[in-house]
């Protein structure tokens, strides 16, 4: 199976602070991978660096369906097939989700776009959100659902879901996990970034990568999650790590 996302030796600095120290991850098409790690290990930075946020100085290679995206503007990365679902999607006042979806359709030469919008709006029950401002006055769960809706209609080659389970109650976590499983397809590779292992109770990832200190220190099967719950990240990098996050949900919508 060919590779949807191939990240090789990605390094990133924020000012003088080196956050990513050489990240390597491969996500094949058709698979769902999870990237775990303690706070401050660089998980969210990796998301932004792959998407091309300008505040980081980054080097290395990231291939999306074989296309090098490092060095491209954010929008070209998106059109190359990369989609990021944000941990805290920003509100865009006055711009309705419908307006945004229309523009997403206009920039994609994609005959199936309008049909996907209709199908997904229906199956995710999005109709009542379409006329509202993007991410405006939505609960945490509704924002995540809006992100998943956009993901589904964008039909990317690679989807990165940043802390998609944060700030959600357990029912919402279960819903999001179910949506990820629904999206699984031979044309898509998914990388889920999470701080907690609880979303793994509701889905079956193919691989788990553990990130500590700005690089991936271990890759393995779903069994790693159980190990981490038992022993934490301590053994993974010369004792230079933290204990796993306690299994406590953050307040509903922070």
């Amino acid at each position, binding site marked *: 199976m060919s590779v949807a996302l191939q990240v090789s030796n990605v390094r990133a600095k924020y000012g003088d602070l080196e956050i990513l120290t050489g990240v390597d991850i491969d996500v094949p098409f058709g698979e769902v991978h999870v990237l775990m790690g303690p706070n401050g290990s660089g998980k969210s930075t990796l998301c932004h660096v792959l*998407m091309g*946020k*300008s505040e980081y100085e980054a080097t290395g290679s990231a291939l999306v369906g074989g296309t090098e995206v490092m060095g491209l*503007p*954010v*929008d070209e*990365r*998106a*059109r190359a097939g990369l*989609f*990021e679902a*944000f941990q805290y*999607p*920003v509100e*865009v*006042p*006055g*711009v309705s989700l419908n*307006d*945004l979806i229309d*523009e*997403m359709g206009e*920039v*994609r030469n994609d005959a199936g776009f309008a049909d996907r919008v209709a199908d997904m709006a229906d199956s995710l029950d999005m109709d009542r959100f379409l006329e509202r*401002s*993007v991410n405006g006055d939505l609960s945490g769960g509704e924002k995540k659902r809006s992100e998943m809706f*956009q993901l589904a209609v*964008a039909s990317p080659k690679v989807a990165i879901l940043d802390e998609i389970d944060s700030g959600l109650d357990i029912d919402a976590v279960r819903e999001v996990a179910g949506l990820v499983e629904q999206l699984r397809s031979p044309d898509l590779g998914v990388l889920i970034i999470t701080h907690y292992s609880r979303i793994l109770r509701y889905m079956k990832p193919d691989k788990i990568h553990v990130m500590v200190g700005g690089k991936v220190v271990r890759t393995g099967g779903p069994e790693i999650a159980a190990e981490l719950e038992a022993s934490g990240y301590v053994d993974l990098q010369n004792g230079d790590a933290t204990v796993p996050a306690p299994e406590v949900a953050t307040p509903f919508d922070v």
Partner: protein
Amino acid sequence: MKTLDSQAAAAAGAADSPWRADRRATAVEYYEKLDMPSPSEEVWRYVDLDFALDDYQITDASGDAHELGVGIAASLPQTAGSLLIVDGHVVDAESGSSGAVFGSLRGIMGDQPDLLAPYVGARIPADLDKFAAAHAAFGSDGAALVVPRGVVVEEPFFIDVQAATSGTVAFPHIALAAEESSQASVVVRYRSDDDIDALVVPQLELSVAANANLKVTVVQHWGRKTRSIGYANAVVGRDGNVHLGEAGVGALFSRLYLNVDLEGDGSSANIVGAYFGDESQTLDYRYFMHHAGLNTDSDMFLKGAVQDESLSVFTGMIRIDEGAQKTNAYQTNRNLILSDGASAQSVPNLEILANDVRCGHGSTMGPLDDEQRYYLMSRGLDELRSNRLLVHGFFNEALTKFPEPAIAEVVASWIDAKYRAAQEAGRVK
């Protein structure tokens, strides 16, 4: 062509009812006494008047106008009546059959000499400044609407005000009165071609009686060489509501001085604005909200953007009288600065003399938001397209509050086009 002197005032007043002749005589005296306003006066601060009233003359005949009913009027499915004012002269009027009195000021004064006495020249003092004095002294015709008690008119009235002759000054007057428990909506459009170097000093007087509702949409779309010094006043009676939206997209220099008097208990005002300046335009707003009655509500909500070398000014004042308890008042002014050479002034003020009120203000100023742009770009929209969507969204928040949605949509398309043109010329990103 006439210069602004006592002969011109006499000619302007040829059809006056006695009450208007008296007011005119006083105004001529004020006009002769008053100096041009100076930026040292608070209400004229931040702007520079680089012209004199004497630079312009009154024309006896109107120039070639655009036809009534084209352009923005086409977006209104139906109108209750329409009227065209060119260079200060009413040249076309369809009074309609709405049950309201609607027509030219001079025509109505001829038919019913005293009907308009409470509504014309009654609330904007002629000694406010030299321009207000000039309006009262030299203004001749305009439009008037009186909606009788209990009459509800669903379709909007349309008033098209044009400047068509360079070198002229005009003083169109628009008086709109909703009598007790009546309702009406009026759309006023100001326009001129880009090569018309004219001065227009319009006044808009709104009178809303008890339980009445009056909606007014003003679209300022003067050409790039036209200057306008405008005044508006609204007085609202018990449980009445005035809903005024003003869109400012044209002119070389456009000013609107607005005063709202919430006199009746339970009266309310919704004042909304959207303005977008480019090149060397100046858009100047001075808004006063006066709460006099008990239990009154006001919301002022203005959004403006400037690019290139344009300047915008918003100064807002909420005054709550000592006896005006249970007032709810809010003013919001948000500004987008789209070019380094552009500037905006935003000065909210509160003067609260009562002790049981809710009152607040918010004022912001800045460029487009980086995080919002990043989000849109992550969805595949390039930078220019993302910025256009952000500008559209910024104004959408104000335009959705406008009284006539069909007009707001047209204004939105003009604003989008103005920004896009600047992008295509490489003046903004």
